[in-house]
């Protein structure tokens, strides 16, 4: 505890000689908090913590205007208002661990199946090395209606584990939803295309024999 922190202690009005801290002193004493903007330490997610009442937490934060720049995620189950960690919060949740993942795009759609070209994401491949057929029944109802040629999806294979601990092999297909092109991006792409076209025309003019032989 440094000297500056010691100055912020006030004597506890109790039977012991212990002290309580002014709230602002927390910033100086705590070894896990860093008041600079680069700090990302703090409680991590996924570990059950002592839960506090929602109103108390919100009002305390507002009162002391703590600037939270923590980009770690501290899980907060707001349905748990008790200060005790309950048994359910300590239980393992349902989880899915990936054995293999592909990114694919749809090349053809048939009555009961669709065909896709696949890139192996697990091996960090950037080339489509495989093609596969999938039953349309494997898709969610909504995706089954939305599927179209060119649609991009991720196909994951892995183990699904239940809260009770049982494990089963499972796979799922999830279609990706990309941001819409903005006008700015479309204009930039058009300009790039014109530039490349001009460059190609320039190359054609400067090497006419190469073009004819191609």
């Amino acid at each position, binding site marked *: 505890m440094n000297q500056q922190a010691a100055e912020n202690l006030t004597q506890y009005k109790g039977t012991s000689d212990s002290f309580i801290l002014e709230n602002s002193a927390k910033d100086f004493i705590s070894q896990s908090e860093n008041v600079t*903007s680069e700090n990302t330490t703090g409680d*991590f*997610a996924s570990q059950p913590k002592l839960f506090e009442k929602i109103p108390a937490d919100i009002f305390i934060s507002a009162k002391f205007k703590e600037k939270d*720049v923590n980009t770690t995620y501290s899980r907060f189950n707001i349905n748990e208002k008790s200060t005790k960690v309950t048994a359910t919060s300590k239980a393992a949740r349902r989880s*899915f*661990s990936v054995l293999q993942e592909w990114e694919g795009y749809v090349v053809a759609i048939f009555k009961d199946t669709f065909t896709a070209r696949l890139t192996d994401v697990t091996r960090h491949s950037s080339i489509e090395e495989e093609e596969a057929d999938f039953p349309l029944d494997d898709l969610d109802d*909504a995706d089954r209606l939305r599927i179209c040629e060119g649609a991009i999806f991720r196909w994951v294979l892995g183990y699904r584990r239940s809260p009770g601990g049982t494990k089963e092999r499972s796979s799922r297909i999830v279609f990706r939803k990309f941001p819409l092109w903005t006008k700015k991006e479309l204009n930039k792409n058009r300009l790039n295309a014109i530039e490349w076209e001009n460059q190609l025309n320039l190359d054609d003019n400067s090497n006419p024999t190469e073009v004819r032989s191609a």
Partner: protein
Amino acid sequence: MLIEPENNSVSIVLIGSLNTTIFHPSWFVANNILSKDDIEDAKVDIVHNALTAFKIGDWLTVRVEPNRFIAETTEPPFIRLNDFVVRTFSEALVHTPLLQMGINRHVHFSVGDEETRNKIGKKLAPQEVWGEWAKSIVGEKDGKHGGMVSLTMQQAALDDRFAGAIQAKIEPSALIKNKTGIFIGVNDHYEIPKKDSSGGSTEIIDILVKQFETSIRRSEWIIDQIMNLKGKV
């Protein structure tokens, strides 16, 4: 990863200036980020000017505070979380100033038995360096014994960002029973110069698009370094 996790998640945390009350599932539908089918099993916990929180099925948990947006998933493919956050802040909230971002990867895995876990803990945090106190650390009472509670390592020398760091935290797992589990959380933190945030969310979201899968792969590689200890202690 070398050991199949029993529990794992990915979260994206954005630091900026946010209006918490708009982040209702219906808002995401109105802005074509989610569909009506997506939010059919949405569960809204609270919408308040200090906190908004909701869950959608098993795949998305969102929590928004006045200066922090958190989206988390436990369901692969994790790229779906990335797509959700990118769409939210590149379409509907492109003018929201964002200053910092964290991509977090968390796993709980079992090393098989308590003895192996203890050996890993002692390798990471040798007790003998604590001198005379070391003898007291090893003591046990009511089934609990002393030892490493939490350890964080940081990498700060990173040339892929203006500022930030990668931090990995390791602790005994509170979710896995029989004292056989280890929790590791990796936080990959990015910052941009304050002047660049005046352009809204674009700078940070561009980083997210570029770095998300690289970050997840790197985090899993870091986690593998600890998982590798299982066969070596």
